């Protein structure tokens, strides 16, 4: 059965969610799903940040695991040199992530449903793409 983590863009009224199998999702994979499901793959002048809504602390550690059914706040904040955007890091191996043309079709109302490549059994299994 699919698990969910909810995220709310800081400026938005409503919440969205990311679905996955297992008991939690890493910050890395959550960000990746947020980027994909909002069609932010071609972004080069911003980064997506996520925050713990209770403490307002940014969840900076990509390996950190967010337990299922919890909520986070997401923000899109500018970076000043395109090369510094970390968006490509998160979508490095995403299907359809190659920016071919202006018409990469991806819904904003439905979230990415593709199978995640990782298992989530609560144990550490760092993503091979995790930046140093």
């Amino acid at each position: 059965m699919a698990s969910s983590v909810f995220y709310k863009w800081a400026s938005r009224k409503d919440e969205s969610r990311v679905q996955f199998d297992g008991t939690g999702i890493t910050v890395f994979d959550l960000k990746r799903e947020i980027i994909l499901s909002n069609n932010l793959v071609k972004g080069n002048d911003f980064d997506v940040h996520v925050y713990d809504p209770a403490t307002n602390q940014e969840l900076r550690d990509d390996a950190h695991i967010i337990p299922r059914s919890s909520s986070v706040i997401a923000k899109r904040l500018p970076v000043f040199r395109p090369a510094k955007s970390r968006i490509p890091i998160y979508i490095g191996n995403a299907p359809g992530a190659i920016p071919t043309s202006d018409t990469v079709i991806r819904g904003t109302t439905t979230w990415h449903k593709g199978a995640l490549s990782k298992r989530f059994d609560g144990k550490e299994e760092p993503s091979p793409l995790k930046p140093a």
Partner: protein
Amino acid sequence: MSDQATLSVTMLGAGQEVGRSCCVLQYRGRTIVCDAGVHPAYSGMASLPFIDNLDWSTVDCILITHFHLDHAAALTYITEKTNFKDGKGKVYMTHPTKAVHKFMMQDFARMSSSTSDALFSPMDMEMSIVSIIPVSVHQLINVCPGVSFTPYHAGHVLGACMYLIDIAGLKILYTGDYSREEDRHLVKAELPPLRPDVLIVESTYGVHSLEGRDEKEGRFTNLVHSIIRRGGHVLLPAFALGRAQELLLILDEYWKKHPELHNVPIYYASNLAKKCMAVYQTFIHTMNSNIRTRFAKRDNPFVFKHISNVPSTRGWEKKIAEGPPCVVLASPGFMQVGPSRELLELWAPDARNGLIITGYSIEGTLARDIMTEPEEFTGLKGNTIPRKISVDYISFSAHVDYAQNSEFIQAVKAQHVILVHGEQNTMGRLRAAMTSKYKERDEDVKIHTPRNLETLNLSFRGERVAKAIGT
């Protein structure tokens, strides 16, 4: 020092860039947002201003300067998708801006729904539009205790205005896009009658000079004529509204004077524009004397004699492209997708054809890239298309150039000048030029160029504000 208050200015967009204008002013507990645009080089959420750091329910008002997408198209998202409506915030724009904004947004929603990058539904759009309060130029509007504003003509496009904002006695002039040259249909931007403390001004053209109107129009019509003489098609990518009307007025008049061109059709490829012609006709009284006099003589300048609408049948682009020489004004101006892109791809391989870029082209768009005259470019289907079509750039974009902008900035006499709506380097050069100008004269004027989300804090003492009121 107790009576010192700080004005915070935060650009959510258009800070050292052109696109997604959105400027937040905070002073003595009040919050005013000027413009809410999208970035034309991006789509979907990536095109929005950086709206995540503001609690939109605290906003007292949103003031929209004009109907261009880079100033107004994020409004629906902000009013319908954020918590803006949980607060008491109001939205204002001029009557003509509201009338055109409605059509612009319908078109915008239709275009973006086809790419599933839609940020909102047609319903959201309707809800957003009904909540807009239309205002007249020169009308003093009281928003809430301590906040009022007056719109002044900005030239640029129909309905465009600058806002002179008063927050608890502090006066801020926000220009939006503006032009200081009267063109064929609009009045030029006005100099407000009193001296603001802060001027927030566009800097699109930085230290560039634009050619004079007659020179520019002459070059344009000659070029169009010579492309037709060599048996080519002329492509004029332009936004459906705004400068397109000016180009049509110029072409219509030129055709009238050149009977040999009467068998050469000028097509205007925009359903949106057809709808908006009614708005242009309604607001003739806001235009300049040239237009008003013609209208008074029952010569409606917006009833064009030599311009035809393209057939609204599928595949018209191909039909026209394969036909005899003609002129086509097609949107969008940046040629990302749509009729202008399709025609470009069809006409690019033939050297007889000509492309004339008539407006400012934002970084990252094909209209900008093609100005470097590449040997080839990539088509929408991923194919490589040779570029033999001639490429020329004649700007009709109705922004101030260096001479006009620096003259206006000096005439406004604000102590703080904040440059917005300009690319980083362009803006940097303008800042350097203005700084040395003031230094020569030993005047203490501060020029700021904040980046997006880099809050600028300006302190004002109580007396200074009181003094400003008296002048």
